[in-house]
């Protein structure tokens, strides 16, 4: 259980302004809920089942990935899901707001022009690779850093 720190306090006056009966109920509850439990959540469940590339007539590559990435939490709540596509020393990280960043050989990330991720649906994302990825083997993985823990899907191999 995770304790939640309250930022505000109504102080002694407020506390005693309320009825004794109310205080009784409050304290009974606090004793029962020793460390406050709060509704129900769960760890992100990230998994990939397919990655399919589509090349435009101009040569740009769009990749459709399918899997599970807590869609509702991702789009309704700030679960920071990201997608990483890698090929050799090149690795591009996509966030779901359309930003993409590439690193080569572990060097500092450089922002790409985009458009990055262009679709986020229940079990599917569509992302556009920046220039530099070549025909051949690549991998894709979904990752999220959530409440100080890192979560990652399986690494899926596919062919560009």
């Amino acid at each position: 259980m995770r304790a939640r720190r309250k930022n505000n306090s109504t102080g002694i006056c407020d506390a005693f302004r309320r009825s004794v009966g109310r205080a009784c109920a409050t304290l009974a509850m606090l004793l029962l809920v020793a460390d406050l439990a709060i509704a129900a959540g769960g760890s992100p469940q990230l998994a990939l089942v397919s990655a399919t590339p589509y090349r435009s007539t101009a040569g740009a590559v769009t990749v459709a990935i399918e899997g599970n990435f807590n869609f509702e939490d991702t789009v309704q709540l700030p679960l920071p899901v990201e997608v990483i596509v890698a090929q050799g020393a090149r690795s591009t990280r996509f966030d779901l707001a359309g930003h993409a960043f590439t690193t080569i050989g572990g060097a500092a990330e450089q922002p790409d022009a985009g458009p990055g991720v262009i679709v986020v649906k229940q079990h599917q994302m569509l992302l556009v690779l920046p220039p530099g990825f070549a025909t051949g083997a690549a991998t894709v993985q979904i990752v999220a850093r959530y409440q100080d823990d890192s979560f990652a899907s399986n690494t899926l191999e596919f062919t560009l």
Partner: protein
Amino acid sequence: MRRRLAAGALLCCLALYAPRVAGAESEVFDGDPTDPESGEPYEILPGQPLVKAGPDGILGTSDDVVDTSIVGDIDLVVRSGSPVAAPAIPPPAALGGRAALPVGVAGSSEGGGLEIPFTAYLCGSGCYGENASAPYGFALQTLDMDDFPVIVAAFADLDDDGFIGPTTAAALSSPAAVSLQVRELEPVGRAVAHFDDGVARGKLAIQVGLPASQGGLRIALVAAASSGPFNQGKYNGVIGSGSGIATALPFLPQKDFTRFLRATAEPAGPDTTIYPLIQFAAIPALDGWSSYALPLDGSSPTIDAAVVNSQPAVRVAFREDPGTPKERSAAGDLILGTSGSARRRRLRLVPVDRLDNPADPAAGLAVTVRAGSPLRIVHPGKGSTEQALSLPTADGRRVVLQVPPGSADGTTGLVTVEQDGIVVAAHPYRIDPRVNRLKADVVAPSATLPTIQSALEAATDRNGDGLVVVSVRPGVFYERLVIDHPLVLQGAGAERTIVRGDGTGPVVSVVAPNVEIRRITAVGGTTGFALAGPSAALVEARAWHNDGAGVTVSGASASLWRSGMIDNSGDGLLAQDADQLACEESTAFLNGGAGLRIIGGAGGRIEASSIASNSGSGVVVMGTDLQVNGNRSIVNLGSGMETSSSSGAQVMANLSATNDGDGLHMDSPNGDLVWGNVLVNNGQYGVWLGGSMNADFSPNPGQQRPIGNNKTAANGEGSVSLPGD
């Protein structure tokens, strides 16, 4: 600080006062009727009568006990926007009409959206209509729910009729509209906030929206909370086990949270993941004692409304184009037939935002649609494989694809849409005669055949084509069906033709041989489809939210193709002693048991199916010569795949990933072949073998050396566990 003060107060008052009401958890329940059996306050929606589960112990079934002498009061109120802090609860923003509603943008602010602020109020006795100076009552400034969570959820008015959920008016005037209204019962946003002095404030991101040029999409805000205590033994201690309170809801809510809480449920707050805890126990019946439909005009005092616009368009996407804009849903797989209208697919290409919502396009939006041969674009244009289109408005353009005569069964290809030099939509297509439309002998309902069952009983082969075909119109039909002679029962699409059972038995029982059921959803039964007759077939059908298995099979040679088993409380598919079962290209999601389970029987196969998020294992097989090939089993609570005392099974080319248990769990295999599987990121072992080593892990018989040519990686406890480990 407050807790210490309160603790001090408790020590004083415990000696002075006995509890005011035995079992009452909070002051919010003061004056509420109490269940004499439990001593707890009844859980009743405001304005609705008391509903208790009947002898079956399940809410939402026909044996529910309704006590109209006890009607729910108001304990909880939610308002959209950020009203100023004041003792009086403000009126709903919805009272001011659409123009007065807070406006958000689809998605969270991190993803380019704009959340809807909300404020939830606890409300004690005399909350509504009892004080002229505060028509909506006063917030109950009680400490006893401080820090308790309130879940606020949003539901979308997809048909823009001013209500959330099925309405009697729609049922009378346009039964087809009711199936769209059923889709309104799925939450489109939810958030958690915490009470502080009886008030909780937060913000709610909504995943859907409509173009601002079309006025956006209206949503309703509702709320629910539970009181304590929090017991580790119940719901993992993350949901209070005391009585719940709620605003008006568009349905009788599901109270058995074990249906969708995973064993790993954790505490949730405003910045964490949240389970969709506000779900329906049953699709509301429209001929019953009450309506749950939520009005969006401010007349329901506990709820409120808002408007959500879509984000700016970033691309285009295909939509189904059934005729009315409200019914447009994302285009499904492109499976085209070989005859009649099934050779054509009428779609609509619309600008969409990043979340796939219809959106206002930027000026000059133009795209090129390409259809791989032999498919042709017959509108616009006259049968080309490439068509340039401009899309000046959010309404988009109609695109009709057609298979030329003589195209071979099994042909595959690709339809793409390019915009600004990139592929923004890609749809593989396939030609398959199984989607050919059959000529109806009887259409139901009609003036002479008012129910589907009456049509089933009256149907004969009127057109002499050798088949008895009963077609069912779009709509929601409150029936249980028994099919006792060979025929085809054909709906208008699983999302459009819905048969809703009463919870007392299967929604559709097949007892005759050679019965085929197409494009129908069965919901609200003890099982959706009970296939007892031999050679029964489900084609593009869906078993949804039944209180047992989604589909049961006991007859031989049954088949499921492109069918879904979703959110049933038992297994998705349960086949028992059913020889030669074929389950292909189907899905099993969010079921309370296994996704797909075959017990006994010989020669069955599960192929190219997707199995995910089930509370048991993804696939469980126990029988002779069973084949489990080319499936994808992910994020199940048990193992991805499980064989038990199987003989001669083939488990080949499957992906089993991120399951809580093993990737492949084999208990006492007997001559099984396990080859070419990817078993990764599972909580326990990639492969777990127990009781026997009699399995081959290579296409070369006799090579019993795990892992063979299967791939394992990143499994929590290791790649393989052998007997005796």
